[in-house]
């Protein structure tokens, strides 16, 4: 089910005016920041359909910026987020895109710094609830209801086992797991939803497991 909590319906507490365009956008921005693992220094944000048509008046731009800065939906600094981003040396460019998309409130974010970058697609499905539907070209369906670990790895024998072995050792329960690959033997992505937040120490250990390229986590 898309919505699993009563607080998805009654809530979130937020700064107006639109739960999809403002609160949802802030959460997409924050998910992107979490997946990148730090504050990016630049962001290119493509907006589609209703997001593209009405983002200025709804504050979708400052909300996405606020999310990239790590703000919650009710952060009083939200409406000043574009200025705060500048002060924090975060350059953001917004692009209205007319390409066809599956959901009317879609944003594609390319974020990065001097060293690395990621690309993700987020949709705002209503009432402030969001889903991340694509990461670095991999399709996924992350609800953000649970913490998750995303692991880019090489599609090799034993890669998945080495990861689950470490999780088992730390008594971390897997709620849901998906594995996606670009082609046999190529880059692959493991998405593991877990019940509790994963400590950085565990992430470090995972990083050193066999065939792992990059790890990020999403805190619910």
């Amino acid at each position, binding site marked *: 089910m898309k919505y699993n909590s009563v607080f998805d*319906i*009654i809530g979130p*507490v*937020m700064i107006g005016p*639109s739960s999809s365009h403002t609160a949802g956008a802030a959460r997409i921005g924050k998910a992107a920041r979490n997946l990148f693992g730090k504050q990016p220094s630049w962001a290119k944000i493509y907006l589609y359909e209703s997001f593209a048509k009405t983002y*200025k008046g709804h504050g979708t731009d400052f909300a996405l910026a606020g999310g990239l800065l790590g703000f919650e939906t009710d952060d009083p600094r939200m409406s000043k987020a574009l200025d705060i981003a500048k002060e924090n040396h975060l350059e953001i460019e917004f692009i209205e895109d007319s390409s066809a998309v599956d959901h009317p409130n879609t944003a594609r974010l390319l974020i990065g710094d001097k060293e690395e970058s990621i690309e993700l697609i987020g949709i705002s499905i*209503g009432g402030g609830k969001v889903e991340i539907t694509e990461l670095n070209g991999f399709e996924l369906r992350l609800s953000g209801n649970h913490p998750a670990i995303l692991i880019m790895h090489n599609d090799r024998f034993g890669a998945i086992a080495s990861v689950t072995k470490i999780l088992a050792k730390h008594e971390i329960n897997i709620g849901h797991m998906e594995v996606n690959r670009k082609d046999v033997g190529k880059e692959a992505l493991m998405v593991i939803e877990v019940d509790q937040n994963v400590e950085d120490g565990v992430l470090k250990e995972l990083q050193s497991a066999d065939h792992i390229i990059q790890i990020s986590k999403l805190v619910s």
Partner: protein
Amino acid sequence: MFRTVKELVEMAEKENIQISEVMIRQEMDVKEKTRSEVFSEMERNLEVMEKAIEDALQGVQSVTGLTGGDAVLIQKYMQEKTPLSGNLLLDAVSKAMGTNEVNAAMGTICATPTAGSAGCVPGTLFAVKNQLNPTREQMIRYLFTSGAFGFVVANNAFISGAAGGCQAEVGSAGAMASAAIVEMAGGTPQQSAEAFAMTLKNMLGLVCDPVAGLVEVPCVKRNAAGSSLAIVSADMALAGVTSRIPCDEVIGAMYRIGKQMPSSLRETGEGGLADTPTGRLLKEKIFGMSM
């Protein structure tokens, strides 16, 4: 976990508990939280709603100047004249609109289920409160009951204007409110479902056509319509009137209508009232100025 209104009502009837109690137990179960944790989280939402209404009755103005001040006008009218539609109804209208005026002014609100439709649930709650004298716990339960019905709509149809038009947004909000009024007034779970169905039925087909794409015109006044319909439908259900089309089928109809709507009528600001001469003029004026 309930998926439909039918299941929700059956769960309440089987255990002989209120709809709000079904929602509370499910939330405790899904999130592995205690009753008091779940209650205090909802109480925080209630406090935000109360504060938004207080602010609105002091008078607020949106950045664009399109909305603001109407909640105050209605309260003044209620004091000076005898409203034709009655004090309770107009009080709900004023408080619902006020909440959305605060939202349009980029104040802090609680999305119920969305920001654009944030007025119906608190507006009706703080109006019926004066007549039903609920305890604080009953007021919090009002939000759980609203949430239980919204939960079904969100999972079986949609709650955003961009996805399903304003019927999905203010339609759901008003219907959620009417189900909660029934419970607070002592009605049965089935009567809550009847009230919900009757409100949503009367909102079917409602398009999302915000002027300049903003959650202001006609959104603020549609929350007035949603909250007044909520009260009327609650009264009808409490009187024993039933919906000939079952609640879940009404939600299904809403979903299919939303799917059939062109995107110009789903929050793009390109059709309906947004596409009137005045709507277009206002858009030019607003985006001509610095926001």
